[in-house]
């Protein structure tokens, strides 16, 4: 299998008044048509990794990489016009909270149509039909009605599904999902993940699932990358997670309270400075 995405020695630096902060420090991985999870706690650089691939890093940051290659295109050297056309068309991203990533003054349907028509030449009528079909694909009942609603008129779960519909309408090959369900209730969360799972499988997309929730990621993805302080500390098949070698991964798994296991006090993570080296 030739990888769709190759990331080698990716670094993201933020110059600040007090010095340079390195958010991502030499991350390397490859991705095929599979589900890859990136797990880490706040400040681990997991989101910045996703954003760097997507090209959404703030302009004052410096990105370097030996290679950041998507299907033969060097993303770092690609002209911004090419990157824009990749974005949404071949690479799409779902963010945490639909409240902030949907335009509040535009109806959901129009936003989906807009996304579609910036990437494909279709008539307005066709676009509408496709958008409604996409809304149905994310299991929104009564899609024609939801099409005309505004983001504030729908629930969080519905908003996130609309977001997924919008991101998938142009048929991207790579989907980056940054905490796609963290703002949702647990039962809704699973529903949304189920939809995402099926679409990714049906369309043969590559998926990068970024989350702080090791348990969720490992149950959803094929392979998991664990990040700590801007580096990858462990890369492991999701099924082997129970046999994780790195103490950080073990600690993360261990410190979650679970139903039916009585451990008082909970084991806490003893952060070793050498992990961050």
């Amino acid at each position: 299998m030739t990888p769709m995405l190759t990331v080698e020695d990716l670094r993201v630096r933020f110059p600040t008044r007090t010095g340079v902060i390195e958010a991502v420090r030499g991350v390397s991985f490859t991705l095929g048509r599979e589900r890859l999870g990136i797990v880490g706690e706040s400040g681990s650089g997991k989101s910045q990794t996703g954003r760097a691939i997507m090209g959404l890093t703030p302009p004052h940051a410096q990105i370097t990489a030996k290679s950041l290659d998507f299907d033969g295109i060097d993303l770092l050297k690609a002209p911004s016009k090419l990157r824009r056309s990749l974005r949404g068309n071949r690479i799409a991203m779902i963010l945490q909270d639909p409240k902030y990533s949907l335009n509040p003054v535009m109806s959901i349907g129009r936003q989906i149509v807009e996304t579609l028509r910036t990437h494909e030449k279709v008539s307005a009528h066709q676009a509408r039909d496709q958008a409604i079909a996409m809304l149905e694909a994310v299991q929104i009942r009564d899609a024609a009605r939801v099409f005309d609603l505004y983001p504030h008129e729908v629930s969080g779960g519905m908003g996130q599904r609309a977001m997924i519909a919008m991101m998938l309408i142009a048929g991207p090959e790579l989907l980056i999902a940054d905490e796609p369900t963290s703002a949702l209730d647990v039962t809704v969360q699973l529903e949304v993940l189920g939809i995402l799972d099926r679409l990714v499988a049906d369309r043969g997309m590559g998926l990068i699932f970024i989350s702080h929730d090791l348990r969720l990621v490992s149950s959803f993805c094929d392979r998991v990358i664990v990040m700590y302080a801007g580096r990858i500390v462990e890369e492991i098949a999701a099924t082997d997670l129970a046999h994780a070698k790195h103490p950080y991964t073990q600690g993360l798994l261990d410190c979650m309270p679970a139903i039916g296991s009585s451990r008082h006090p909970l084991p806490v993570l003893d952060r070793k400075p050498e992990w961050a080296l």
Partner: protein
Amino acid sequence: MTAAVSIDDLVVDYDGFLALDRVSIEIASGESFGLVGESGSGKSTLLRAIAGLAPVSAGTITVNGQTLAARYRDKAFFRQVQMVFQDPYGSLHPRQTVDRLLLEPLAIHGIDNAEPRILRALDEVGLGASFRFRYSHQLSGGQRQRIAIARALIIEPSILLLDEPTSALDASVQAEVLNLLEQVRRDRQLTFLMVSHDLGVVTHMCDRLAVMKSGRVVERLSSGDLASGKVEQTYTQELMVASKGFVRRVIAPAPAG
């Protein structure tokens, strides 16, 4: 067993929307009681109603034998009941140092010996005196939550209301804060009323719990029952399944809603 908090047929009405619909709960003194539910279930509203921050339109709340008014709470009440909020980034005043934050409750209640009390409070939550003069933006999320706990404990309440105290924290930090909460409960024989959406956290922390949905209590059970699967309501079961992570293809695509 004496009841520390007893809530009877409580109704909270936000302009026609019933955030709480005849909820009754009894919490024994020294007990740790959990409220589980999803957003909009009314679990946080219940805490806010006890604290006098929500409009109670019917029902009674009794704390340590005293029935409370619908809205008004006197100073004596706040010496018995304190609260820790969900968002450690929003619950500390952005322009006050830790010292000022901890001094405030002492000043309000006219408690003397502020200096040693502040140092002891910082010590108790595992932070130490070096944190005393920092502003909240100089602290991490876990440290902020420790300060919030220290602030709640400094006037020595007997009941602590915990509104999702760890849901904004990283998993490893969550473990530390949960351990801290357990320890202070043991040391001070506190009564906990803890709200969470995470069944794992609630069963870890609480002896008994109530599952809430749409402003009502749908099931009351003990943590032991939950662990051994003695669950009656399907909603509780759904929550249990959900808390174990994603299961491929086992959950049939539910009809959209």
